[in-house]
């Protein structure tokens, strides 16, 4: 399969091994700019491993391309500089840094654009404005999630990778977060969303891939999956 020239993120035959066990088995998918692709599946299915492999945080085989350029030989810092941003499971906000610093540290750019980006993030998450001086570890789970997403946005990424972003969020907050992802995609970012909170994810996604035991079991337009009656069966068996 030739991926050359494809815009956005293209993964081809990605496999992740942990000491002989395949967490991800030869998985291929693409995320075009402006698209939200949902990666669904129970915990342990391999969603997280795939997202981490794309970011370069776990070793993998296969091809990872961004706008047709291969990324797999780069370390995570180089991938980040080429336009990938990552919202990890558990948020991993820097506890010792203030909210402002958590955001600013992600913008590897000059001061003036950094300030502009910060303003844009605040505009998206007005709640953060009052918290700018607070240390990361004092934040609640929802606030941390806003910081983690805001931090990724500070990179002005071309591809946004999210690992369980709704985890531990109150429903109203999760809904807002999903809504925001839609706005981001509309502005041209390619979004790959690993999520076990199925319904809201499907509500905003363009495409959905269901993973079980590291392999794709279903790849369909999101709307199609959302209509399917056997949604519960996919997870509860």
């Amino acid at each position, binding site marked *: 399969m030739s991926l050359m020239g494809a815009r956005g993120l293209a993964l081809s035959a990605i496999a992740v091994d942990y000491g002989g066990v395949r967490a991800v088995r030869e998985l291929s998918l693409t995320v075009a700019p402006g698209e939200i692709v949902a990666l669904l599946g129970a915990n342990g299915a391999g969603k997280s491993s795939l997202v981490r492999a794309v970011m370069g945080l776990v070793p993998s085989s296969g091809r990872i391309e961004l706008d047709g350029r291969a990324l797999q030989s780069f370390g995570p*810092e180089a991938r980040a500089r080429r336009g990938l941003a990552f919202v990890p499971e558990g948020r991993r906000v820097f506890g010792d840094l203030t909210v402002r610093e958590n955001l600013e540290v992600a913008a*590897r750019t000059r001061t003036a654009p950094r300030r502009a980006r910060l303003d844009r993030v605040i505009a998206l998450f007005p709640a953060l404005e009052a918290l700018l001086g607070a240390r990361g*570890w004092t934040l609640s789970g929802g606030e941390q999630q806003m910081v983690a997403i805001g931090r990724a946005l500070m990179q002005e990424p071309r591809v946004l990778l999210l690992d369980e972003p709704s985890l531990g969020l109150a429903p109203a907050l999760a809904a807002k977060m999903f809504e925001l992802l839609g706005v981001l995609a509309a502005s041209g970012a390619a979004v790959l969303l690993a999520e076990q909170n199925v319904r809201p994810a499907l509500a905003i996604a363009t495409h959905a891939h269901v993973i079980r035991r590291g392999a794709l079991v279903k790849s369909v337009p999101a709307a199609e999956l959302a209509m399917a009656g056997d949604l519960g069966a996919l997870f509860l068996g």
Partner: protein
Amino acid sequence: MDAGSVLQLGFNALSLGCAYALVALGFVLVINAVGAVNFAHGDLVMAGGFLAVAAAQIWPAPGILILPALLVIMAAMGVVLGAVAYLPLAKRPPSAVFVSTIAVGIMLQNGANALFGAAPRAGPALVVPGHWTGAGAAFDRQSLAVIVVSLILAGAFRFVLTRTQLGRSLRAVAADAEMARALGIDARLHILGAFAAAAALAGAAGLLLSQRYFVTPTEGTGLMLKAYIAVVIGGWGRWGGAVLGALFVAAFEVLVAAWLAQPLAEALLCAAVLAVLFVRPQGVFGETHGRRA
């Protein structure tokens, strides 16, 4: 003892404590960056002192003018230290780094002995000698300069850490190196940067201490122990705590020694540290959140 003497001693303690604070800041910087104790840190202070002595021989200028060059040379030493004694052992338990830095400390100490000899040496005066008197005490210009330079360096250190992208990146690497890499930060480079900055601070402290208190090849271990105590009292990994801890150690060394007797002050410092550990194991000022063991 009259009020003048007490004022005098307080001034001395402040000056000494400020220099110790620079030592402790460098020590805590490496702890935060890599989660391991740098046993060679005291020897870096000593090396800074001898470098100042050597520099003053080549170019007999006030210490304040030598300081910038010294900071650069010491930073380079820090990079070498990090590359040799830390990076190969980055994935090992911290005890391996203890031993590798102990080995580097032995080399520094004996290198200084071979190059400069065992005699104590006096570093260059920071500023033109002299002092002001008032309220029954003599305020030595050197000591004042030590306080001012320490405050400037500690302030610059704080500014870099909190107000610059470099400092934020450094702290991000210290808190979660993997996440920092995912943000595009080169973690290895920043770790080496932390070693460089720590060595530069140590070197500055060495210069400040060398004029008033002289420098000998064997004094590194004692300084390292003082920094260790300061950092634990202040709360492992806390910048501000390290500074306060250093002032506390100096206060014991000067004020309690004046009140009682020097050996008793030393024993009491031990007792005070133990009391702090038992009553508040996270240090007087608490520990930073999310430290790495």
